[in-house]
């Protein structure tokens, strides 16, 4: 019976596929409004400097310029996506804290005039000493970036569960290793863009956003507006990956420019400005210690991390907690200690990038475990199997895990990759490596404290029953939530996908939802949609029961037919009954909402990482290394996922492909590089080196059977989880190929080449 679904579980085409292949889909930058102006932000050329004066007179005189604004023209209220640390201003008041910090903005009749005007704004700076490294930033006498945070410590985490010291004392083997991650940037192909229209006390913002709700909440707060007077509308969004979760200067400055000029204002970042705005992945310095018994059973783990946060908090408090919170999900052990310092530096602020805080620690831990396995003379996948989490268990940091098929993922990965015939047995230069991962299916608690449901949905059936529109605040940024939520709505109503329409992510017309982050929408928005669909169905069956002169409980509805369960031939079309409903009772509407159960422990930071359900996966990769150049050629990658019931397999595997692609870029090539003055050296897609179609290996994406009891139809997340093991699995494959361990990301050709050179030197000495 479990697979007896009419609409979910099927490879239905994306609901927005056609408009996207014809070029009709409008992204924010494609929109035009009458009398619209263009706006840009002037940013700081210095990493750390006091602002002595700003002279806008020349810029204001330029023909075509309609407004020039600085901190004097905007609210001074500090903002930020993390309520515990509001530390950003719309424009810097006393000093700038990184190259790219916001200083002023201009609105003019066209782009050319705007750029000319920006050059005419004269800012006098007193350059201050800057610090780009988190370790340096903590030293005594280091430049102080925010007066409120001595020692540049932004966030400090100390968590301890069980007794790690005792576990290490009793262990057969204890090992410590250190690894270093890198700054990466989400690099969606669509640049951020926002159009603000402030008219008659109401502010409307069309924007490239992952969460209309958080935008609405923070924009209203900043300007002292009622939530109801701020309308945030998501257009089609060209990718986010965490980088479009929080409102930026484009929304804040754009709103003020629109209020002052009385005209719509379009703001955008160019590619370099996107890198400077950042909110990408934090660089983490990660020390991991693990104690195991003779059989490789993990007894205790200590994770001791430092992260470079950049100049502001962004979502970094959550990132700091996530980094450690997610580690114990995959393996069962009772003793765990996690220490973290998130440190301010004079670099762009880091935030939440796909896998939020977890991928780099996972790289460190999975490399480290391979080394532990090596010490014990054990197959590394065997070590993982022995420790793999079981279903219906609780992690030391109090996360309840219901469904968990990690063991099955490892076993299947080992089987389909040919692991046993390959590990340590491939020809010289070729190697295979594995790693595992896990991720939340939605955060158990919202970003700011509120008792609002996490998701809500309304379904309105058209008067003649030939269509139904789903209204949801869920945010499709390309991952396909509009599609799978329409599948879910149709399934719950007993309707057809082809007749579904959707209005999503517009704070004025759609009900509240927190948006696209923490891989939450399939489970959470899905739960609200399912409830709304079931409510539609129940109402229809009631009317149908009157029309057919039977009891409502004897009826059901499937694929737009209402039928008697005892005799399915006795049936009426959905359209006829829906029309009759409208005639007798008015609009046919179903409503749903979802609030997760109370989750997690009571210690400080306990909410971060809680979730109704967790995905699990294994990745295995095979690489070939060029001994002369260090070039890493990835031959093949296998991903095996436990992501619960799948709503649309084609879209699901697409998420795995994309997550693996991003993980592979971060593993081998991607890194945002700065010069000693804090200027980005490679702020473009070519030199930052996004992987191309020629770089991608053969990818096999497989599933294991799993049904999550805490989710609608048993669903779980997939979009972020598949980025988590990737870096570790490549590092382990390189080790298998060449016997060299790369302790920092990316695992660049140069690092591999240098490691090989060092290895040869050592061997010659012997």
């Amino acid at each position: 019976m479990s697979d007896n679904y009419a609409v979910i579980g099927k490879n239905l085409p994306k609901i927005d596929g056609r408009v996207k292949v014809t070029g009709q889909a409008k992204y924010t930058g494609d929109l035009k409004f009458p009398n619209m102006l263009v706006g840009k932000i002037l940013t700081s050329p210095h990493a750390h400097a006091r602002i002595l004066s700003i002279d806008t007179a020349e810029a204001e005189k330029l023909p075509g310029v309609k407004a020039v604004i600085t901190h004097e023209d905007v609210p001074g209220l500090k903002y930020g996506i993390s309520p515990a640390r509001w530390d950003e201003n719309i424009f810097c008041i006393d000093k700038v804290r990184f190259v790219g910090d916001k200083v002023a903005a201009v609105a003019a009749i066209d782009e050319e005039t705007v750029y000319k005007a920006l050059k005419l704004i004269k800012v006098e700076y007193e350059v201050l000493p800057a610090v780009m490294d988190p370790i340096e930033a903590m030293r005594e006498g280091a430049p102080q970036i925010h007066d409120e945070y001595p020692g540049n410590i932004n966030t400090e985490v100390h968590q301890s569960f069980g007794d790690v010291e005792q576990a290490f004392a009793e262990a057969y083997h204890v090992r410590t290793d250190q690894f270093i991650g890198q700054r990466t940037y989400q690099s969606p192909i669509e640049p951020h863009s926002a159009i603000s229209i402030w008219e008659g006390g109401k502010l409307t913002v069309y924007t490239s956003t992952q969460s209309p709700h958080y935008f609405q909440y923070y924009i209203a707060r900043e300007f002292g507006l009622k939530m109801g007077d701020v309308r945030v509308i998501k257009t089609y969004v060209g990718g986010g990956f965490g980088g479009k979760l929080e409102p930026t200067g484009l929304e804040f400055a754009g709103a003020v420019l629109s209020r002052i000029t009385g005209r719509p204002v379009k703001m955008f970042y160019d590619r370099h400005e996107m890198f400077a705005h950042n909110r990408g992945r934090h660089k983490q310095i990660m020390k991991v210690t693990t104690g195991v018994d003779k059989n490789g059973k993990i007894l205790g783990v200590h994770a001791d991390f430092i992260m470079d946060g950049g100049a502001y908090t962004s979502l970094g408090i959550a990132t700091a907690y996530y980094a450690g919170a997610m580690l114990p999900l995959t393996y069962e052990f009772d003793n765990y200690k996690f220490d973290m310092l998130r440190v301010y530096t004079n670099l762009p602020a880091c935030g939440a990038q796909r896998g939020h805080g977890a991928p780099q620690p996972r790289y460190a831990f999975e490399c480290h475990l391979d080394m532990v396995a090596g010490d014990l003379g054990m197959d590394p996948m065997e070590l993982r199997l022995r420790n793999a989490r079981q279903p219906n268990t609780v992690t030391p940091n109090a996360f309840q895990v219901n469904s968990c098929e990690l063991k099955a993922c490892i076993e299947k990965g080992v089987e389909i990759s040919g692991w046993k015939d390959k590990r340590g047995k491939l020809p010289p230069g070729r190697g295979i490596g594995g790693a595992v991962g896990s991720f939340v299916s939605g955060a158990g608690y919202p970003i700011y404290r509120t008792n609002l449901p996490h998701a809500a949905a309304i379904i309105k059936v058209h008067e003649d029953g030939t269509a139904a529109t789903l209204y949801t605040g869920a945010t499709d940024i390309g991952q396909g939530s509009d599609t799978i939520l329409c599948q879910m709505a149709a399934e719950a109503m007993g309707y057809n996908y082809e007749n579904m329409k959707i209005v999503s992510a517009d704070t004025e017309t759609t009900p509240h939802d927190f948006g696209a982050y923490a891989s939450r929408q399939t489970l959470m928005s899905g739960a609200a949609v399912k409830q709304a669909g079931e409510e539609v169905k129940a109402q229809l069956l009631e009317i149908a029961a009157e029309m057919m002169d039977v009891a409502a409980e004897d009826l059901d509805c499937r694929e737009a037919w209402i039928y008697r369960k005892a005799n399915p031939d006795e049936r009426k079309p959905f359209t006829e009954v829906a029309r009759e409903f409208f005639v007798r009772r008015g609009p046919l509407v179903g409503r749903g909402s979802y609030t997760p159960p109370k989750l997690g422990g009571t210690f400080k930071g306990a909410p971060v990482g809680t979730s109704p359900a967790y995905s699990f996966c294994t990745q295995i990769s095979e690489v070939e290394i060029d001994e002369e150049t260090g070039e890493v050629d990835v031959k093949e990658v296998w991903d095996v996922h436990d992501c619960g019931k799948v709503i649309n397999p084609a879209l699901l595997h697409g998420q795995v492909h994309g997550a693996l692609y991003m993980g592979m870029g971060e593993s081998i090539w991607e890194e945002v590089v700065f010069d000693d003055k804090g200027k980005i050296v490679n702020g473009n897609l070519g030199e930052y080196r996004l992987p191309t179609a020629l770089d991608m290996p053969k990818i096999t994406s497989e599933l294991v059977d799993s049904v999550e009891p805490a989710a609608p139809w048993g669903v779980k997340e997939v979009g972020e989880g598949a980025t988590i093991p990737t870096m570790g699995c490549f590092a382990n494959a390189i080790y298998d190929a060449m016997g060299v361990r790369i302790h920092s990301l990316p695992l660049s050709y140069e690092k591999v080449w240098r490691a090989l050179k060092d290895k040869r030197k050592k061997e010659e000495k012997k």
Partner: protein
Amino acid sequence: MSMEAITDKHGVKRYLITLNVNGDSYTKVVKGNTVLVNVLRDDLDLTGTKKGCELGDCGSCTVLMDGKPVNSCLVLAVEADGREITTIEGLAQHEQLDRLQDSFVNHAAVQCGYCTPGMIMSAKALLSKNPDPTEQEVREAIAGNLCRCTGYVNIVKAVLAAAKAEGGAAR
């Protein structure tokens, strides 16, 4: 440039160009530094051609100029004078999608969709000169089009499937 320029009262030269876009002829006055992508998007409202980097890295603005794929952010409008330009809006014939467009939808090759128009135009150029490409040839043809969502897996599948479908038709 042998083109005749009109000089405005600020001394800025402007050029009269004629573009043939998707079969229709348009005459526009442009500056010497105006790039083709801006004429298409701002003057002709053909916003299916996207801007992702304005540096020629991402390929989102790919259009066909006399059948060849070009980054329209790197082509000056005056260089396009007299040329045949095809944009994504020119592919579908009335309601009938081009095989590539159909194939992208059916193979789940579209996620956020921002790279899609450029990607399809590069693939179109490939299939026009090489109706039966190998997987490697497809990857080479789209190597200048960056996609951040799909890992190119389903895009490559979609192009190969479209080629197969096209091969079956009388060409």
